[in-house]
């Protein structure tokens, strides 16, 4: 680690995903030039986020409380669980405001070459959750992993595992983008859109 404070900060920032050397240095310089109040708030936020966030004991999302606000919200529909790969996917669905059920965060997808197998994902907590809820409560699991090979494989694995428990497992639709034009869609997307068509 460099002794020079600026280079040190820059090296630390450069370890974050998606940040190259140039961006790291630019961010470090921006922090140097910022007003002291902002810098204090930033460093405090960095400390707090790490010390207080934990995994929700129910859905494995990140939360400052043992049980997150969604899992403790009695107004949400407990019969449907939407399974996502990462906390940011949950946030995207939540922002849309169209889903009022509960979530489950896997913290990854199956990736054989990346060394990510079923035991590396939060699948056991999901099974425990379904078993604990009994047959009456959770009726459907919506798997909302990305429509790529790893996301599909993860969804398929979950359906093989959970289908026999009597819970309906469904997959979010994929295909032609809404507002897009059909003639510009690529072959794979069209293929998928036709395969996953639904009856009107």
């Amino acid at each position, binding site marked *: 680690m460099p002794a020079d404070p600026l280079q040190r900060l820059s090296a630390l920032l450069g370890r974050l995903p998606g940040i190259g050397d140039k961006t790291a240095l630019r961010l470090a310089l921006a922090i140097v030039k910022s007003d002291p109040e902002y810098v204090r708030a930033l460093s405090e936020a960095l400390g707090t986020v790490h010390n207080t966030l934990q995994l929700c004991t129910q859905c494995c999302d990140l939360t400052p409380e043992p049980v997150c606000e969604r899992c403790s919200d009695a107004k949400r529909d407990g019969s449907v669980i939407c399974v996502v790969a990462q906390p940011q996917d949950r946030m995207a669905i939540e922002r849309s405001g169209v889903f009022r059920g509960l979530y489950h965060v896997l913290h990854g997808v199956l990736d054989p070459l990346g060394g990510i197998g*079923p035991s590396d994902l939060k699948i056991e907590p999901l099974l425990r959750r379904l078993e604990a809820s009994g047959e009456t409560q959770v009726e459907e699991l919506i798997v909302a992993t990305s429509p790529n090979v790893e996301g*599909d494989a993860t*969804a398929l694995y979950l359906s093989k595992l959970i289908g026999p428990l009597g819970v309906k497992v469904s997959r979010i639709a994929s295909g032609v983008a809404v507002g897009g034009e059909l003639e510009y869609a690529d072959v794979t997307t069209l293929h998928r859109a036709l395969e996953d068509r639904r009856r009107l």
Partner: protein
Amino acid sequence: MSQARTPAVVLQASPLGEADLMVVLLTPDLGKIRTAAKNARNSKRRFAGGLPAGALGEATVSRRREGAMWRLDAFRSVAEVSGLGRDLTRFAYVNYLCELTDVLVVEPEPEARRFAALAEAVGETLRSTPRPAVMRRFELRLLDSLGLLPALDHCCVCGEPTSASEIAFSSGRGGTLCVVHGAGSPRVPAQTLALAIALQRDDDPESAWDAASAASPAVRRALRDLVQSVVRPQLRRPLRSLEFLAALTPRGAVNRTPGDAP
């Protein structure tokens, strides 16, 4: 600046920066190359269908000068690979083919037969029910392209042709052994060796696959063990795709023919 259009199989792709991918390709004329695919995680156009391991198609690559890193400018799949995640057995098999190639092939040295062997195995696995016989043929042909194919029909010490119902085999010594040189070595059914010989030949893969698939479970297991005994000492690390396959099996998530899956 040089640009090339080449047939290619994606061996592995991993995130690079915010939106890029590092993609390892096997090609017939450039060998195994590492490429940077700019914006691959956003671009639906240049990389339609994504770049999963096992994607088989035509790559457009370029580089500024000799020795510089390749850029992957576009990739057009010729086989339907995006449905790979909809069959876990196929998914695991294709990952195994790609990982085995990636681990065993170190040099960027071009080898058209090696590429043909991989393209054939990946293409066949994407097209039809995944079969262990397709894995076996590929493993043997990959070993052959690396100069590691063991002797299968003659003594690897004295060159004497081997013939008996059971033949001594030692991967450490170089393959099959005659009665004199093979004293004390474990024996392999002659039928297993005959299947191995037929599988690694260039011609008529269909009948070799069919014959290997129709053999008894014991013969198929012996074939798997024979090939693995040659492959395993060459691996620099355990294969993650095999650990993955093993992790899926107990739950019944993959169809694994007892004993002869990779």
